[in-house]
């Protein structure tokens, strides 16, 4: 009979099963390492647990609305979920945190994490992004360049399945693409108008992790546009539909759900992390698991909070925090609420099926001397979607037979555009632990302090004006924008809290996502990001994870960890 330590000992532990944790699980298990994945939430079995996926609108008692009671439990998450997918979002009432200033921390505590509900937009970072900090002096320099990551982007894209078009843009590198999801009539009209009226910008097909073709072992997108309920056809990429399945099939995976990580345990003698202490979410019992390699993939805010709570003699300020950067430099993308307009024309055109994709206007500011903007550094991209009005959006008059006739037919074309801008790394934007206030597991509450800087706000204003200008030039009417921008965190792209860098004095991780201070701890979720770019970041997390796993496996096999 094995003793408890032996039973609880693995080659590697991965904390978190979301988009980056799933990749770590796949790569490490396929690399031959016995791997334990710790997930704080419940299990979500692919297909079987997508309980709302095939429900028709009339099968929901309150349609997509949340009840008052559900809203009271979810004052924060409710802006991002509805009756169809609310079970993939936490109840804020059960998982409180402290907002120094308004900051939305949108979370999904379950196997698969937020990979079940992500927006699926997948864009590569470019050389421009990796050089940005060095060039304009904000933050610290990335320890890698585009060429370090290129083959890993290729590798993950091939596996994930990204529908997109090749455009030969140096600042938005092409990738390994499935056929793009085509543009509808109004989107094409806007694309042509933008090409005609602007020399500096263009519209491309959004790059999205939905399968436009069958992929082995998966399915293909059925164009239902209900992705966030989980896809019974495996039409989009999630940990549940792919990476965790492959990890399981390797025979090397152990997955423990309901495992709230309390701390990473550091050994003063070997100067390594030796394991992870968890609290069972249900029984509240503590257990320690041991491994030679630890990957933290709990998402930017949670990973930083685990590090800060892992206090030892060598690391009184949190594990691997000799730089005092852990928890700092929190970034999200700056988003505007959106710009919209309607179009009189193309009324003989329609579409069949519901696209899960978007159109995309890649960054067009501060690319070179010709596009220099004096109000801000870096830039933003704009995502958009065109459709014809239906009963939800069509203005109607009166009632009776006349109203019915108005509802029955498609309305005008409309387009909505929304910017996503790069937020600069700023030490003052941070998460910390409030030791006086604790959650139901006795863990200190996370306190978030985040404010947009002047650069971020200047960009927000620019993206709104540019979006309006683009629609007006294309002949749209009723063009307007929602002037209130949503609170930070709304893009659900939080990152930067344990950044990569060359210098251990100013960064937490090295160029292989390995802690400078503790070389058998790797962090490959959003925490590692040295700058935020303006691209949706999940693809970059996945590429960095695969690359770090290769390095870790080689180090493990040559006994260097």
């Amino acid at each position, binding site marked *: 009979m094995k003793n408890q330590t032996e039973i609880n000992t693995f080659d590697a532990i991965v904390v978190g099963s979301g988009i980056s944790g799933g990749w770590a699980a796949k790569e490490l298990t396929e690399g031959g390492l016995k791997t334990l994945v710790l997930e704080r939430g419940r299990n979500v079995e692919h297909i079987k647990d997508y309980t709302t996926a*095939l429900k*028709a*609108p*009339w099968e929901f*008692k*309150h*349609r997509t*609305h*949340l*009840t*008052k*009671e559900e809203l009271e439990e979810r004052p924060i998450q409710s802006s991002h979920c509805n009756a169809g997918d609310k079970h993939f979002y936490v109840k804020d009432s059960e998982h409180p945190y402290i907002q120094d200033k308004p900051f939305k921390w949108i979370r999904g505590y379950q196997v698969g994490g937020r990979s079940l509900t992500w927006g699926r937009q997948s864009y590569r970072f470019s050389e421009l992004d990796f050089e940005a900090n060095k060039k304009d002096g904000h933050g610290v320099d990335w320890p890698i360049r585009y060429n370090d990551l290129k083959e890993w982007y290729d590798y993950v894209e091939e596996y994930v399945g990204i529908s997109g078009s090749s455009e030969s843009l140096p600042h938005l590198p092409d990738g390994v693409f499935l056929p793009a*999801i*085509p*543009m*509808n*009539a109004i*989107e*094409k009209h806007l694309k042509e108008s933008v090409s005609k009226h602007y020399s500096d910008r263009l519209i491309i097909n959004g790059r999205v992790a939905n399968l436009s073709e069958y992929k082995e072992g998966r399915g293909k*997108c*059925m*164009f*239902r*546009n209900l992705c966030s309920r989980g896809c019974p056809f495996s039409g989009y990429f999630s940990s549940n539909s792919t990476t965790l399945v492959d990890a399981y099939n390797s025979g090397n995976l152990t997955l423990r759900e309901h495992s709230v990580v309390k701390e990473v345990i550091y050994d003063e003698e070997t100067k390594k992390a030796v394991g992870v202490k968890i609290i069972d979410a249900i029984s509240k019992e503590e257990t320690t698991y041991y491994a030679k390699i630890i990957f933290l993939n709990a998402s930017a805010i949670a990973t930083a909070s685990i590090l800060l709570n892992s206090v030892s003699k060598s690391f009184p300020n949190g594990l691997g925090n000799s730089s005092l950067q852990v928890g700092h430099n929190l970034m999200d993308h700056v988003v505007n609420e959106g710009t919209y307009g309607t179009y009189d024309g193309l*009324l*003989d*055109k*329609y*579409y*069949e*099926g*519901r*696209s899960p994709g978007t159109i995309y206007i890649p960054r067009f500011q501060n690319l070179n001397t010709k596009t220099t903007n004096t109000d801000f550094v870096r830039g933003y991209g704009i995502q958009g979607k065109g*459709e*014809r009005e*239906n*009963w*939800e959006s069509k*203005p*109607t008059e*009166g*009632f*009776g*037979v006349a*109203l*019915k006739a108005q*509802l*029955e*037919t*498609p*309305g005008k074309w409309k387009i909505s555009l929304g910017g996503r801008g790069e937020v600069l790394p700023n030490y003052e934007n941070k998460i910390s632990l409030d030791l006086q206030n604790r959650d139901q597991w006795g863990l200190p509450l996370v306190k978030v302090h985040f404010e947009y800087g002047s650069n971020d706000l200047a960009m927000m204003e620019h993206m709104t004006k540019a979006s309006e200008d683009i629609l007006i030039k294309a002949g749209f009417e009723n063009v307007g924008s929602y002037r209130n921008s949503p609170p930070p965190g709304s893009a659900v792209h939080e990152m930067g809290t344990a950044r990569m860098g060359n210098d251990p004095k100013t960064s937490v991780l090295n160029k292989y996502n390995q802690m400078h201070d503790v070389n058998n701890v790797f962090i490959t979720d959003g925490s590692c990001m040295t700058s935020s770019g303006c691209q949706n970041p999940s693809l970059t997390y996945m590429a960095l994870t695969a690359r770090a796993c290769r390095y870790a496996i080689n180090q493990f096999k040559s006994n260097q960890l």
Partner: protein
Amino acid sequence: MNRRKAIGGILAITGIGIASYSGVNLFHGKSNRGQLKNYLNLLSELVDVIIPPTETPGAKEAKVQNYIIDFMESCSSKKEYNNFLNGLTDLQDTCLNNYDNNFEDCTMNQKVEVLENLDSNYDSNSLFAKIDAKIRGRSFFNILKSLTVEGYCTSELGATKLLAYVPVPFNYKAITTIEPNQKAWATR
């Protein structure tokens, strides 16, 4: 004697009563909720005037009245619940005063007249209406009409008979040419 402990003991004994009592006070104020089931017949007739049966089913057959009650009871704000409930009682008063009948027993012409009067007092698209709705909640007719439209277009009968509903499109044809009598898609 430990005073705090004694109070704690009393609270514990009467715990259930106190909890529910303060719950009502704290979260719902003087709540009118729970009354709409008494207006089921009235709502059935109202929704059927707003979306009447033609060659396709009307809102009453699609059970939109039940959706409206479910939504208003569970999802609406206190302001809008009160606006809606007051709107229903005002409407019955209007019918009794003008036609000596409940709305349900009015002639179709009378029903239309009553709703036309409410509709002409309401322009949901005007700036004033939008500001007013933010402050005081949407008006009775605004709530009634938008819930009827939503409830009907998301009902099985509305989505599949008046509109076109395809649960699994399979493919995406990004550009098609409108067919004669093209119906709008029920979902986005």
